[in-house]
């Protein structure tokens, strides 16, 4: 295991091509992570147009969808992540 794998936060962002929504979502996510989880996170972006077979595994319906793989339990946030507070609550970064 590399150091990279042992990050406290593992986040996955599912997008369907580089649409306006997915770009917004990714930018928002990066911003929040830098602010709140600096150095403790890893973001994996999955483009479903390229890897459609991955959609089933994480039960993806909507795009963009942010999945918090680690820490457990899995949480999902869908949308362009424009509401910072909701995202942080959803990811359990700040208590509700």
């Amino acid at each position, binding site marked *: 295991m590399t150091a990279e794998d042992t990050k406290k936060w593992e986040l996955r962002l599912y997008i369907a091509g580089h649409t306006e*929504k997915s770009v917004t979502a990714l930018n928002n996510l990066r911003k929040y992570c830098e602010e709140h989880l600096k150095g403790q996170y890893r973001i994996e972006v999955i483009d479903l147009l390229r890897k*459609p*077979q991955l959609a*089933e595994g994480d039960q993806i319906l909507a795009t963009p969808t942010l999945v918090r793989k680690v820490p457990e339990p899995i949480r999902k946030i869908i*949308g362009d*992540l424009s509401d910072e507070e909701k995202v942080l609550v959803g990811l359990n970064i700040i208590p509700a």
Partner: protein
Amino acid sequence: MKPDNNKKQKKDDKKQLGLQKTPSGISGLDEVTGGGLPKGRPTLICGEAGSGKTMMSVEFIVRGATQFAEPGVIMTFEERVPELALNVASLGFDLEKLQANKKIKVDYVHIARTEISETGEYDLDGLFIRLEYAINTVKAKRVVLDTIENLFGGLANEAILRAELRRLFTWLKDKGVTAIITGERGDGKLTRHGLEEYVSDCVILLDHRVLNQISTRRLRIVKYRGSLHGTNEYPFLIDNDGIVVLPVTSLELDKEVTSERISSGIPSFDEMLGGKGFFRGGSILISGTAGTGKTSIATTFADGVCRNGERCLYFAFEEPPQQIIRNMRSINLHLDKHVKTGLLKFCAARPTLYGLEMHLVAIYKEIQKFKPAVVILDPITNFASIGSLSEVKNMLIRLIDFLQNEQITVMFTALNLNDSLRDPTDEAVSSLVDSWLLVKDIEANGERNRGLYVMKSRGMKHSNQVREFVISDDGLELINVYVGPDGILTGSAREAQMIQEETGIAIRNYTLNRKDREIMRKRQVLESKIASLNAEFESVEEELNKVYEEEELRKQILNKNRETMQNIRLSGEKNSKPKKPQNDS
């Protein structure tokens, strides 16, 4: 039945050039829809919980994959894949095997609001991509979304959801897949979330009703754009072979008919029907009050059929088969013999065991398995206890239709509760059947006898006479009814009449003999008189002859004397003349 559907499909394709249809493979549904679901378009199946939406859609996919070489995708929003596989395994569908063979793909979409929070704009591209991926994996032609309405429970932003659903259905059409969308029935609407707004090509409504504690599933095609379709409510059921939809009647009445006849098993009864019996493929109703021998007639018919080496299927709704066999032994019918040879088969079920439709299907199936020449339903009256009269009638219409198609002769028995002819079951059924026999009690002189009437018998000469119907140790027999001065005589009155007539004959015979003897004696007297007269005549004749002969004799003697005298005189002249005067003196 499947090849029939295919045939039908081809026929309809010719008829309706505009709209192509995808046969569902669900028996009966393709007949009702005139060939299947609209090809390349979504169809909405809606109904309450437990109405059979999932079963129907899964069968659509499975039949497509196994019978029409059309792979399919099931996207389930409700049941997990193993659960779904387990549920439909009861219909004989092996989803896991089909999935392994790449015939179908099942994708379970899990939505839980607790796990998902929403921030900002999103779309359902994820779902589209999953669906497209699944379609591409098996090259699907059929898609089922069961039930997509669950999205409304999982996602809060209804505006986005509706827009996306509209996009989804358009997208499905563009993909050219024939799709089934299921939806839960809502208050005053076909579906809870108004899916019918988006899916407008074909809408099928399923319903599950319980009446008199007996449940019936029904199906109705609410709309089918661009196609003729049956508009009735069609009963259907789910059994271990899948879904069976039962069209009330096939729309056409173009059955093939035969003029071949089949004996009723009672020779004297065949005589009432022009001497030949029933038409093969016809339907016969025997009605009568309790204990008039309906079952006896039916079993005798069955016996006759089996004797001819044909198969007979006997549905007993009142008595257990063993009891029928035992009872019929008393009239010299040995049905167990036919059961052993496999020509006769009994199917016994209480009518209340399940609903009318289930009965009908059970009957259908047994008939298709056993392939009989004759089917007997004994009695149909009890069906009235599980359905209204019109329902029973509908069921029987369908049954008769089916049997006529298969050229199977059917005999129903019906119990009349009162003695009047206007019994409701009779009225309902009698117009459907080809021959209607009525066995009626004739009560007179303190006893009860049976009279048999042929109420109607289409297309053949039949007797208008009431016959006395006698059940004896040797079987059934019809006897001409005696019509006496006081009306019809039956039973012991008839016997009495017969004895009386026999006595009359004996007396008459005796009188005749006496007369003969009298004549003989008269003749003898006459003859003796004639003889004496003859004798008298002879003596008179003789007397007369005597005079005549004496006269003749005298004449002869006289002549002789004269001759002698002459000779003497002539000889005297020649020899001595003197002697001559001596002669003169």
